[in-house]
């Protein structure tokens, strides 16, 4: 378009654009794109020590062998099941709670809205490691009111069981991330034109019906985005189980895919399998985000 008349200007602008983008692009290539390519390369090779282990390792092309070994590992597959179950518990509860709280904040009855937003958001700035540390103490029998409540209700609470461990970790995540989404949903609700809500009120809809039938569907875009980012974050689950692991027999070192990759690199030094696992993991995550966006946008259409 601008090519004919002001090519000097456009060349100058292209030069400026290059200067502004270059620092980011170079770092982005070096820390994201190249590592992805390197992972693909690594996943096709294997380091094999020759004979008696003398003379160093030799890099051998092994085709898809690393992928079959990763997929063949039961703990790797179980990791996806664990993360899937975790998402199934954590995401509906967290998004539901965040939506409910945002609708309540948006209602005419709520007081001290600013205070509630700040207080609810606060856990989000707490490092995951420290959140897990705090909650871990709160899960310790004898120290914890949480465990006491469970026991007084006659419910067992054994952090060594798979279900309790999963619930304990889901609770930490819900605690950390609900407030963040409350803020996002609340802002989206505030952006709804007031006439729409007034129209619903004039039509005789009560506050609850307006909230559920009018307001909630109108912020679907924000909900979809929140679910998408939550799925991506939740599937990478690492820090919390890594912390609680020492206290719960249910959590092994390869409990989630991210933990599997970490163990493969840091403990087993099986780089080929770790690379293959990383790629499979990234592909599954990509597929999950695709499903989330596709499924929800079709419903929106």
């Amino acid at each position, binding site marked *: 378009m601008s090519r004919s008349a002001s090519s000097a*200007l*456009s060349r*100058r*602008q*292209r030069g400026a654009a290059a*200067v*502004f983008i270059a*620092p*980011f*692009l170079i*770092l*982005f290539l070096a820390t*994201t*794109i*190249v*590592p992805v390519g390197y*992972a693909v390369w*690594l996943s096709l090779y294997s380091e094999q020590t020759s004979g008696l282990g003398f003379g160093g390792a030799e890099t051998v092309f092994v085709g898809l062998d690393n992928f079959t070994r990763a997929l063949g590992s039961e703990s790797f597959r179980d990791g996806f099941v664990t993360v899937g179950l975790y998402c199934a518990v954590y995401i509906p509860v967290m998004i539901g709670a965040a939506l409910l709280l945002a609708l*309540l*904040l948006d209602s005419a*009855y*709520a007081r001290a809205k600013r205070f509630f*937003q*700040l207080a609810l*958001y*606060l*856990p*989000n*700035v707490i*490092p*995951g*490691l*420290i959140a897990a*540390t705090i*909650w871990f*103490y*709160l899960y310790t029998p004898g120290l914890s*009111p949480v465990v006491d409540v469970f026991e007084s209700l006659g419910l067992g609470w054994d952090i060594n069981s798979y279900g309790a461990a999963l619930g304990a970790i889901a609770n930490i995540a819900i*605690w950390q991330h609900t407030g963040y989404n409350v*803020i*996002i949903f609340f*802002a*989206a609700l505030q*952006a709804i034109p007031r006439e729409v809500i007034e129209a619903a009120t004039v039509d*005789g809809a009560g506050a609850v019906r307006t909230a559920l039938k009018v307001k909630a569907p109108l912020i679907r875009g924000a909900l979809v*985005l929140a679910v998408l980012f939550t799925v991506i974050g939740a*599937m*990478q689950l*690492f820090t919390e189980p890594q*912390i609680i692991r*020492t206290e719960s027999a249910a959590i092994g070192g390869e409990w989630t895919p*991210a933990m599997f*990759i*970490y163990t493969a*690199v*840091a403990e087993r030094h099986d780089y080929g399998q770790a*690379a293959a696992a*990383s790629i499979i*993991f*990234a592909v599954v995550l990509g597929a999950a985000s695709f499903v989330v966006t596709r499924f929800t946008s079709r419903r929106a259409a």
Partner: protein
Amino acid sequence: MSVSTLDRPRTAAGAPPAPAPRRGVHTPLLSRAVVNTVLVLATVWTVLPLTWLLISSTKDFAALFGSGGFEFAGFHLTDNLRGLFAEENGIFLRWMLNSVLYAGAGALLGSFISLCAGYAFDKYAFPGKEKVFGLVLVGVLVPAAATAMPLYLMASKLGLTNTFWSVFLPGLVNPFGVYLARVFSSSFVPGELLEASRVDGAGELFGFFRISLPLLRPAFATLFLFSFTAGWNSFYLPLLMLSDHHLYPVSLGLYQWKTTLAVIPDRYPLVIIGSLVAVLPVVLAFFSLQRHWKAGLTSGAVK
């Protein structure tokens, strides 16, 4: 369903009255009580664990295991603090300063890099722009848990593992920040203003530093707050990259102490007071920049 006498019985009857329905005198009061009670309960739930941290940081080892989680028992806050900064020749302070460098300096530089890139994507036309931007958006979706492993091996080939840079440089890259910066730039910096400065003969760098950057200051604050929080909380990459305790960020240092608790139980109070001290900078940053934080969160989500 339960019987609720205070509900409006009319609407259920199916004859919507033409004017706005008259509510029972008690309904708003009840609703107000219910709404605010739920909000208060949720707040209690978010604040309670932090209260526990606050109370526990005043206890010594015996009181920690000998008293309820939410009751005071002796006041040893200063003892704990002294112990915290004395342990292992005061390495905790070193960890805090490392975190300030990784997260603070990293967020300053990283936010500036994101802002420049987002600004260029918004204000300039160049070949392949949307393709490159698409790549950036894909970068938002690439899981850090998957790139950390090849990144570690690359750093190891270059002899960069166990160095400051192995944690600092990856922390500068924030594709989502670039996306946010583009949104900010398009809503905060009017293109006509730049056109006018070009007509006056000003260069592109002048336009950015003298005209656009001042307008983008709130955007910068938002990006800084997010990167700072993310950097302060980062755990996976430092865990892979670093083995020298002196290079640890505070999160990794506390983790390392935590893993030794079975052998050195005396460190229980130190891990707790250390967690409290480690949380303070992020909480302070959050409260001092709270004006910007909401603008940033929502402009990314609503648009």
